[in-house]
């Protein structure tokens, strides 16, 4: 949901999903020419988007496409990271008890078929989302705390939340406006209220069922919204075509992003080598490069002449999670020792080819909540051995493996590191650590598992140590889901069973605090506790490299960790594709 700015959710980082949208800065060339429209931008996708229904799709590829077609009530300014109005006239009025949010929406916005965007459409979008039969259970979870939405007048909507939570505004602002007349032509949801859909809709069962079936099946390849690009075509396995809407309501409007390229084409090339060749042949205008492609295959005068490479840290990190319930790892000293055994700088050099940066905590470094003073545990095996000694680990039987009596039983320091097969970075990390530990009398096994099996194991706490990644929030973070003790049960995201009553208190307090400076203080404490206890060994953020054809202007890396092709343009003299879209 809310493609433009909610996409950096705290989700598992699936290998290639990282890029998508968002965009930090090199300087904007001052006094340069004014942007002009025209030309095409041909980008690359590794595989087809799942489907182009904004509610029922759940993958980064679809989000990247749909972000150009749909618009939400609020959006994140990609540079300041502040919320600002898009379809709304202003940020919502929030009631004293922090439970109701009233949005006024603009009266000059219209959908791509010319019909105006009204409060009715926003309410409809909420209904479709809340409808339990619509195949969008995962998007629905975001809006779980929103229990009602009512129209006060055609342009004013009031949402009611179940509990006060500072991120509610963020959530509501992310609602995309879907044209009611297009997605529900028969008006099946007309008489059903949001509250009913969120609760009991049995009175309207028939209609709701009919609507959901139609909505689930008929809109996966024909999106229509109010955004600056219109959907043109999608040939499976080949390309997705978007066309700039010349009648876009936001053209020339203050505070609304202007777009310039006439056509956005995403070519689907399943093979990264072929994609690089296509880029060099001029068939792609931008491409995210693999580390080795960046180092070995994309230099030289010819490449430099046509393409500029942009390097930026992506907001996500990789970590080693220690099962905090494990007899070996429940001792914080042991976990600290493990971090000291981990040569993170070296890993960034050899595993990531220097395209990375060591991290020491879960908060994105451009956020005000980030604590600059965190201690970065250096690679120090001597210190690690001292810590293990303090914790009672020594080789008492001379078999070359450290041991200790835990719960009345002598156990050797032997454990298993799990990761998902096919992820070479995680594999290299595991092997490097295994090598290091072996020198010090610790026997670590390394085991690669198929993604689904791996996921199942870690959610059921069936691991000693595991390697995984999290996306970092570029917006206000909320670490409750990952670090609160309650999330260790029920297959929650606290897979390592981290339990600290002080952290619990901070995380709960934080969610109810509407004062940003207080929240920052709370999270600084939180980061210091994690830093001390080392429940994870935080490893690194990866850097991405994207090559962009030099004819584009306005290309810059944004604090959200990426580029924003939406803003790019090409000077008239350099425009490459002049034709409008031909019927294909």
């Amino acid at each position, binding site marked *: 949901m809310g493609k433009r700015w*909610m996409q950096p*959710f*705290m*989700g*598992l980082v699936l290998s290639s999903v990282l890029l998508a949208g968002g965009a930090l800065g090199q300087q904007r060339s001052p006094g340069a020419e004014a942007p002009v429209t025209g030309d095409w931008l041909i980008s690359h996708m590794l*595989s*087809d988007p*799942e*489907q182009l229904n904004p509610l*029922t799709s*759940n993958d980064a590829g679809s989000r990247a496409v749909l972000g150009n077609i749909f618009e939400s009530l609020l959006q994140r300014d990609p540079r300041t990271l502040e919320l600002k109005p898009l379809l709304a006239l202003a940020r919502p009025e929030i009631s004293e008890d922090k439970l109701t949010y009233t949005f006024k929406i603009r009266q000059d916005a219209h959908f791509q078929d010319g019909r105006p965007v009204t409060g009715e459409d926003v309410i409809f979008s909420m209904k479709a989302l809340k409808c339990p039969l619509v*195949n969008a*259970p*995962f998007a*629905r*979870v*975001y809006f*779980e*705390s929103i229990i009602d939405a009512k129209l006060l007048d055609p342009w004013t909507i009031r949402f009611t939340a179940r509990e006060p939570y500072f*991120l509610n505004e963020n*959530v509501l602002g992310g609602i995309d406006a879907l044209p009611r007349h297009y997605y529900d032509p028969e008006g099946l949801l007309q008489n059903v209220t949001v509250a009913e859909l969120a609760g009991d809709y049995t009175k309207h069962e028939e209609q709701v069922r009919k609507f959901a079936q139609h909505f*689930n*099946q008929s809109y996966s390849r024909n999106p229509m919204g109010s955004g600056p690009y219109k959907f043109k075509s999608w040939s*499976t*396995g*080949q390309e997705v075509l978007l066309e700039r809407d010349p009648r876009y309501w936001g053209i020339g409007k203050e505070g609304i992003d202007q777009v310039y390229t006439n056509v956005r084409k995403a*070519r*689907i*090339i*399943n*093979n990264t*080598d*072929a994609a*690089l*060749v*296509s880029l*060099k*042949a001029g*068939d792609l205008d931008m491409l995210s490069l693999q580390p080795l492609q960046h180092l070995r295959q994309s230099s*030289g005068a010819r490449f430099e002449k046509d393409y500029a490479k942009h390097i930026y840290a992506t907001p996500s990190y990789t970590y080693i999670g220690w099962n905090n319930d494990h007899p070996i790892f429940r001792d914080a000293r042991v976990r600290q020792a493990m971090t000291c055994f981990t040569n993170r700088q070296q890993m960034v050099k050899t595993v990531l080819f220097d395209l990375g940066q060591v991290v020491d905590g879960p908060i994105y470094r451009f956020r005000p909540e980030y604590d600059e003073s965190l201690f970065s545990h250096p690679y120090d095996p001597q210190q690690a051995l001292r810590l293990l000694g303090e914790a009672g680990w020594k080789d008492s039987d001379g078999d070359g493996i450290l041991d200790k009596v835990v719960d009345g039983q002598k156990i050797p320091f032997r454990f298993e590191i799990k990761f998902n097969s096919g992820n070479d970075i995680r594999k290299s990390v595991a092997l490097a650590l295994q090598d290091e530990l072996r020198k010090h009398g610790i026997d670590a096994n390394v085991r690669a598992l*198929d*993604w*689904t*099996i791996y*996921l*199942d194991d870690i*959610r059921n706490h069936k691991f000693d140590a595991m390697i995984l990644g999290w996306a970092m*929030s570029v*917006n206000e973070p*909320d*670490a409750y*889901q990952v670090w609160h003790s*309650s*999330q260790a*049960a029920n*297959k929650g*995201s606290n897979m390592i069973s981290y339990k600290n009553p002080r952290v619990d208190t901070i995380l709960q307090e934080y*969610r109810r605090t509407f004062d940003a400076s207080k929240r920052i203080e709370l999270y600084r404490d939180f980061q210091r506790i994690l830093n001390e206890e080392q429940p994870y060994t935080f490893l690194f953020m990866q850097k991405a490299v994207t090559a962009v054809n030099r004819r584009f202007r306005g290309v810059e890396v944004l604090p959200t960790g990426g580029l924003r092709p939406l803003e790019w343009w090409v000077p008239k003299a350099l425009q490459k594709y002049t034709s409008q879209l031909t*019927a*294909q």
Partner: protein
Amino acid sequence: MLTYLVQRVLLMLPTFLGITLIAFAIIHLAPGDPAELRAGGGLAAGGEGGLSMERRGTVDRALQEWRTQFGLDKPLWMQYLVWLKNLVTLNFGVSFKDNQPVWGKIVERLPATLKLNVLSILLVYVVAIPLGIYSATHQYSLGDQLTTIGAFVLFALPSFWVGTMAIVFFGGGDFFYWFPPGGLYSVDYSSQWPWWQQAADQAWHLLLPVLMLSYGGFAGLSRFMRSSMLENLRQDFVLVARAKGLAERVVIYKHILRNSLIPIVTIMASIIPGLISGSVIIETLFSIPGIGQLSYDAVLARDYPIIMAVFTISSVLTLISILLSDLLLTVVDPRIAFGQRTA
């Protein structure tokens, strides 16, 4: 003949049921939950909102909802019966990924896979059979040894590597731009082009993938042809033919070749299922949206309806092709008659 056919077809039915039952069981019992996969592992589903205890309950409820929508909450045997029932009407269900009918998704990808496979099989036969004949008639000559070694060297080269090299060197980029690095059509392809331009464009795109798909097959088939020829060369009727004073050309192409083709014909039938089961490696390498890719992605995402559909179609084709090769055998070899064959 008709009784025999009916008998064979009726026998296919239990075989087919057995195949689908086993496949269904294996696919559904394999680890991995499509619902969790769709949710990004359920871990992502909390989003920025963060999950309170009751919200984790919501994710579980969401997963449950999703399973109900696709009938995955029912016991396995019932799911199988539902699947069978739908199969009778040729309804393979809808894909978990986008709610679209599986049949349509397969039909959409069929042309690309068919083009690729028909062309490459054709190429294999056109190259390998003359090669086999040559090797057999020039047994142990330098030419025989060279072609044999050549075919085996090709056989030993993995297509993902050769394919990548071909893309890097001939696909534009830093070297020669002789062939497109992938896809089926040019960037500016248009259905308004004259037919020959469209055909030329497609051929240009298909050439590398077809080559990559075929070169490994030369060795097997040419060796097969060679040994079949050699076997016949030693037969008495060859001696008789030569003794009659027939020209060597006639001996080889009329008498030996015809007899040697019998086993080749039977393998030909077994190719039919291979026609639609695309090649994952080549399709991925050259970004060709074919059946191979579809089924590979489906396996990774545990998209059961698609996996089952592809599997069912190819097993039906396999059964048919077995029958067909038996029938073909009687056509090319009059010594084999239906009556004596009991299934």
